[in-house]
């Protein structure tokens, strides 16, 4: 099975381990992530005002290119997923907007793609049972906090990947690879997102809430599916540790890094060394 794959800007640069670990995990599970021959940035945000058609042109261009390579496209970054899936819906359902966008990008696209997050590929196309069966190094005893953030889930009627108030897809995957998922109240709260641009105080507060909530429930590692969440959480951790009595910093990793490790991948594809806090001592301590 080959699945057309849209990496997006950040997975090709600062979040490279997210990309390499996912591609290698796919191979270990018997399929291939085939990078689109041509792609551009999705715009890193779905335009919230419906009259902002120019904001839909970049993602539609991506979708039009993906359609040439199959009827499905998968992505890993929560924001890319949010933008592509919602744009796809607009193009599919709103013929007038589709016409205007088509005129702009000079390409025909009708919204017929199935936009899938890597989670959906693992859950619906591969199956978590098969993931579990392929595990070579079960992460037994690791208490992992699955952090969804916002873009994977909301708005519910457009995304539909899981329940928007009480999702479980992330925990189900972590369970399949042997972890002990830790449920925590802030798992669907925002990390501070684009406030990273100049309002670090807001990011520290929001990311701090998320980490305190996860670590307070016993998480030894926080797992994300968004490079901006990963960056914000990592960057806010020193302030959190300095300002909160009893707070012990934890590694913040991509879910594909843990998945890849569990599938027995070579460490060069996992990129643990690029995380601000190394997860390997924890893995060693747990004997996995």
């Amino acid at each position, binding site marked *: 099975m080959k699945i057309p794959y849209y990496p*997006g*800007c*950040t997975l090709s*640069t*600062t*979040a490279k381990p997210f990309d390499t670990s996912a591609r290698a995990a796919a191979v270990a599970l018997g399929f291939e992530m085939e990078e689109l021959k041509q792609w551009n*940035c999705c*715009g*890193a*945000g779905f*335009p*919230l*005002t*419906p*009259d*902002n058609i120019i*904001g839909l042109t970049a993602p539609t261009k991506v979708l039009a290119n993906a359609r040439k390579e199959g009827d499905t496209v998968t992505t890993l*970054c929560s*924001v890319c997923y949010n933008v592509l899936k919602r744009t796809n819906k607009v193009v599919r359902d709103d013929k007038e907007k589709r016409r205007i966008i088509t005129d702009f990008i000079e390409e025909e696209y009708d919204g017929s793609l199935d936009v899938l997050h890597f989670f959906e590929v693992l859950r619906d196309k591969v199956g978590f049972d098969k993931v579990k069966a392929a595990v070579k190094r079960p992460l037994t005893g690791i208490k992992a906090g699955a952090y969804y953030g*916002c873009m994977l889930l*909301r*708005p*519910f009627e457009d995304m539909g990947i899981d329940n*928007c*108030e009480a999702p479980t897809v992330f925990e189900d995957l972590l369970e399949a690879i042997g972890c002990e998922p830790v449920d925590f109240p802030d798992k*669907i*709260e*925002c990390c*501070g*997102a*684009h*406030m*990273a*641009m*100049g*309002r670090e105080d*807001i990011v520290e*507060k*929001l990311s701090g*809430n998320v980490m305190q909530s996860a670590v307070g429930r016993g998480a030894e590692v926080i797992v994300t599916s968004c*490079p*901006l969440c*990963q*960056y914000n959480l990592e960057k806010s951790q020193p302030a959190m540790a300095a300002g909160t009595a009893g707070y012990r910093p934890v590694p913040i990793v991509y879910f594909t890094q843990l998945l890849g490790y569990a599938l027995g991948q070579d460490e060069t594809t996992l990129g643990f060394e690029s995380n601000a806090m190394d997860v390997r001592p924890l893995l060693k301590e747990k004997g996995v």
Partner: protein
Amino acid sequence: MKLEKKEIKSEAMQQLERMTGEEVRDCYQCGNCSGGCPVSFEMEIAPSQVIRFLQLGKLEEVMRANTMWVCVGCLQCYSRCPKSVSAAKLLEGLRQMVLRKGENHKEIEDLPFPFLKNAPQQAIVSGFRKFVS
């Protein structure tokens, strides 16, 4: 307070509703949006208060507050609204009213070099979308 119809349905209010597709009268002020908003602690006017001001046609009051610039767009407000009103969309509409005039909220040259060098591309692209015209 005396309310004028021409203020409630001002040109700017009509423009905002046209841009966003939202109908501010639908809101019955339950406060769920402000309750769920992770950034309300920092806002000069909470999301439900923003909508109340808009219902009264007091758009200038909202434009003066920092609320639209600190909204993170996480859509928690909308996902919990029993009337399907999107405070996030209205706030984006207000930002757009400023940005479409060519006024930047942040200047690119003011951003610190370490941020530009180390931040994920996504942070920079998405910040530009929200703050730069």
